[in-house]
């Protein structure tokens, strides 16, 4: 698979040429039972979380896998409540929106409504996993939910299976998020090895600064940053926009991407043990703000603007975590909430617009404000919320952000102003191009279900914009978890020249300036995009994939497939390992040379005969010759047994050898005469036949030589070991009369080691059944 470098592909969910069919509300609403069930589930979750939090939180702790020290420990503390409420609350709205959207989406693509079964279960599972993630207090449990959300995201991004783009985007998102999540697991294991627990609260108590902590903290940060699509692991998020809009509105704005910063918020007391990690967070956050914000300025596709915006916005949160401390922790929590409601509303706006017009690009849209004033207003509020304009929740997110940034020094102050200016610029551009100007399309009416959730979110924004205490309490609770100390979050309107206000004013001025000179901004943005395409991380990802493919193919081409090479491939490494072992141990005195005496003088010529016969077997040109030479080996060895006073073995050897020779001859006589090149369809044993492989002439002797030497070394080595006394053999002989026998071999076979005999004769039976399977399809007679 090769991955196409980033382009501005058309991610249209509907074919551009065809006007979308007028949606029939009946079909869209009543049909989607799965969707409404998911919605109800989310609503129930929301209520439970809300009640739980209002009652002062809750926690539970059960053993999970005690021998691995894993516990199912959950706590609905401030941070958990914040993310759980965000996930379920936004979930209710997005699911409601999705019931309408999905039906239209499937209808556009002429797909069966049954495909909902590939959508809603993942959405519902995702919501549940988010709640679990928000409340988990155990690092491994956290990892579990972390990856479950990634798996859900994979299937949701790949929901449109007919689009190659979706396949690649899904795989990319999976790879980046899951592989970076492994860092979380490694960090957990590292901390466990040092402090003996996976529990986050216990770790927060026990951990002190040191190398392990720094490494673990850095790994935790990597996991969180990958998930939150921070530079340089950000590239998967814009591609993930191939998912249907409800997925983007939910997973890729308010929930899954938020899981990364949730992780950072949850383990922040550990991160705070290392200044280097905090600085790293600052750098990465700043880079994400800039890269995301600048790239958002020039995007044409609606969801791409929002995707880059998400990268940039979570950059704010990462910067806040990098700053650390009470103010920043509270600000980060508030920021996540305010951003969540703004961004999901904007995504849903994009989806509604695309559904109504069939267009998904800013360059082809415009003037929608007149046709859908309600949508325009709601989207306007959401955009204002994102940009931090007064009377929206966003104003306070920026106010808190500015306060924290200002408190951290002049560098962060400048960064904060730049960031907010950029945000105003790109989101202003987005909204203006969509809703102002000349109408360019003839939109069909937007179903009410597509606008209602956006309106609800807009109302919530304004409500919080007027009464910020609605969020402040929750944010303070969440911030105190992050900060591991109480946090006070008290947003409010102050009509004075405090730094935060001045920073806000300068940011707005900067934003307006960029909006007024769109050309310069666009040029800069495009230049950055081009640079990113050429040397950016996505390029590296693509290169890595391609390289692994090439390497894989090249290695595979060198794999040996034929039988003899397979055998040689066992013999040669075995010989080399033997040589290694030989070299690694002292060999002085390990190899004894005996002196022949008595019957040995008969045995030696017999062994010589064996040697000659073995060589003849290897060199034999005909099958008959080979079999006869082999049988010479066998009979000579039988004679050796007889001389070594092992008459039982010799008897068996003789009769068995006779039988084997007969069987060999019978089998060979029935094989085709020779392997003719014309008919390669024969099961042939090519003895000394042509050697078609290059180098095969050397391969066989070489492999045989190496293996033979190794066997010689091994056997000589163990034969040189002194006899162990008293050995098992004497014991057996001593006990033979007890078993009512005089012949130790027979008694051994039937009594002492009868089980071996039983198994060995079973082998005979199986072997003959195997032959029958090959020859007569398993018929024994």
């Amino acid at each position, binding site marked *: 698979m090769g991955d196409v470098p980033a382009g501005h592909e058309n991610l249209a969910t509907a074919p551009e040429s065809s006007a979308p069919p007028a949606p029939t509300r009946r079909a869209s609403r009543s049909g989607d039972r799965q969707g409404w069930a998911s919605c109800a589930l989310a609503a129930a979750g929301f209520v439970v979380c809300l009640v739980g939090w209002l009652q002062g939180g809750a926690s539970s702790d059960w053993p999970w896998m005690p021998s691995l020290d894993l516990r199912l420990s959950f706590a609905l503390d401030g941070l958990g409540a914040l993310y759980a409420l965000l996930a379920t609350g936004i979930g209710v709205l997005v699911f409601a929106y999705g019931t309408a959207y999905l039906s239209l989406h499937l209808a556009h693509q002429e797909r069966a409504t049954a495909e909902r079964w590939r959508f809603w279960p993942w959405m519902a599972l995702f919501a549940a996993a988010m709640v679990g993630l928000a409340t988990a207090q155990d690092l491994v449990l956290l990892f579990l939910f972390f990856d479950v959300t990634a798996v859900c995201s994979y299937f949701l991004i790949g929901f449109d299976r007919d689009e190659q783009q979706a396949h690649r985007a899904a795989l990319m998102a999976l790879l980046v998020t899951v592989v970076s999540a492994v860092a979380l697991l490694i960090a957990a294991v590292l901390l466990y090895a040092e402090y003996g627990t996976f529990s986050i609260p216990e770790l927060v108590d026990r951990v002190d600064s040191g190398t392990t902590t720094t490494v673990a903290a850095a790994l935790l940060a990597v996991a969180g940053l990958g998930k939150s699509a921070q530079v340089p692991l950000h590239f998967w998020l814009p591609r993930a926009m191939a998912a249907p809009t409800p997925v983007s509105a939910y997973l890729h704005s308010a929930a899954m991407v938020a899981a990364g910063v949730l992780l950072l918020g949850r383990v922040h007391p550990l991160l705070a043990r290392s200044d280097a990690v905090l600085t790293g967070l600052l750098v990465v956050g700043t880079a994400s703000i800039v890269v995301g914000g600048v790239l958002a300025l020039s995007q044409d596709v609606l969801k791409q603007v929002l995707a880059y915006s998400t990268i940039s916005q979570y950059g704010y949160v990462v910067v806040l975590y990098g700053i650390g401390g009470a103010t920043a922790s509270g600000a980060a929590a508030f920021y996540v909430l305010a951003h969540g409601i703004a961004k999901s509303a904007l995504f849903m706006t994009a989806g509604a617009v695309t559904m109504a017009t069939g267009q998904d690009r800013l360059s082809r849209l415009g003037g929608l404000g007149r046709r859908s004033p309600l949508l325009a207003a709601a989207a306007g509020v959401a955009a204002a919320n994102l940009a931090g304009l007064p009377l929206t929740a966003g104003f306070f997110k920026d106010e808190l952000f500015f306060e924290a940034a200002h408190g951290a020094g002049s560098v962060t102050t400048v960064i904060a102003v730049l960031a907010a200016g950029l945000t105003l610029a790109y989101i202003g551009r987005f909204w203006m191009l969509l809703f102002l100007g000349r109408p360019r399309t003839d939109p069909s009416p937007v179903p009410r279900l597509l606008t209602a959730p956006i309106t609800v979110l807009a109302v919530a924004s304004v409500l919080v914009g007027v009464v910020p205490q609605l969020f402040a309490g929750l944010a303070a609770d969440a911030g105190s978890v992050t900060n591991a100390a109480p946090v006070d979050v008290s947003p409010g309107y102050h009509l004075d020249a405090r730094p935060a206000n001045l920073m806000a004013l300068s940011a707005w001025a900067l934003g307006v300036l960029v909006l007024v000179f769109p050309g310069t901004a666009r040029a800069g943005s495009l230049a950055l995009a081009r640079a990113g395409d050429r040397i950016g991380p996505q390029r590296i990802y693509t290169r890595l994939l391609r390289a692994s493919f090439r390497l894989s193919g090249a290695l595979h081409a060198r794999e040996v497939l*034929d039988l003899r090479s397979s055998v040689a491939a066992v013999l040669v490494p075995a010989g080399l390992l033997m040589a290694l072992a030989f070299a690694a141990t002292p060999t002085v005195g390990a190899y004894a040379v005996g002196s022949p005496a008595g019957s040995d003088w008969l045995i030696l010529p017999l062994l010589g005969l064996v040697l000659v016969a073995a060589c003849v077997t290897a060199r034999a040109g005909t099958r008959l010759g080979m079999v006869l030479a082999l049988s010479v080996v066998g009979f000579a060895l039988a004679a050796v047994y007889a001389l070594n006073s092992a008459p039982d073995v010799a008897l068996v050897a003789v009769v068995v050898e006779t039988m084997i020779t007969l069987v060999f001859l019978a089998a060979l006589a029935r094989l085709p005469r020779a392997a003719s090149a014309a008919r390669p369809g024969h099961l042939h044993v*090519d003895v000394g036949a042509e050697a078609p492989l290059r180098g095969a002439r050397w391969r066989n002797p070489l492999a045989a030589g190496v293996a033979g030497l190794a066997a010689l070394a091994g056997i000589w080595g163990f034969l040189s070991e002194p006899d162990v006394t008293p050995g098992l053999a004497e014991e057996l002989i001593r006990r033979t009369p007890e078993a009512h026998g005089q012949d130790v071999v027979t008694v051994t076979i*039937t009594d002492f080691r009868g089980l071996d*005999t039983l198994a060995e004769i079973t082998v*005979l039976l199986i072997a*003959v059944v195997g032959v*029958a399977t090959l020859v007569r399809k398993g018929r024994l007679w």
Partner: protein
Amino acid sequence: MSRPYVVAQVVARLLWGPSVVVAISLIVKGYTDVGDGFAAGVVVALGLALFYVALGASAAELALPFLRYAPRLMITGLLLCLGTGFFPLLSGEPIFSHLPEPGAHVATVGSLELFTPLLFDLGLFLLVVGVLTVLLHQLAGLKGVAEDLAVPPVDDAPTGGRRP
């Protein structure tokens, strides 16, 4: 094999009886002297193999019709061995606890001892005879099979069936 080898046929028929006798003696004497059920089985099978060689498979199987019970013979042999080995389970003793127990008196008929290892040896004998007979039968059936089966080149074929 259109012209059977008369001498070989005669030898085969003549040796058949003695090979069985040798086998029996191997079993009987097994506990005092060289030999056991395995060797006995192979000796009988060699006698049978001579039939196959001399008469050809179909004629041999006609001449010795009981050969077709070979599969049953081998399975019976294995079951007999299994039974002998595992029957102590019934009394909760370790498997392969033979009767009579070590040290107890063993009834004898000549040099033949009457005890359970003998049954085991007998099973071994039956199985070996059965297995080798079936093997001979299968080899006889091999004729023509190799040509019918379109077996691919099995050796030195670097582009075998693995490339998709």
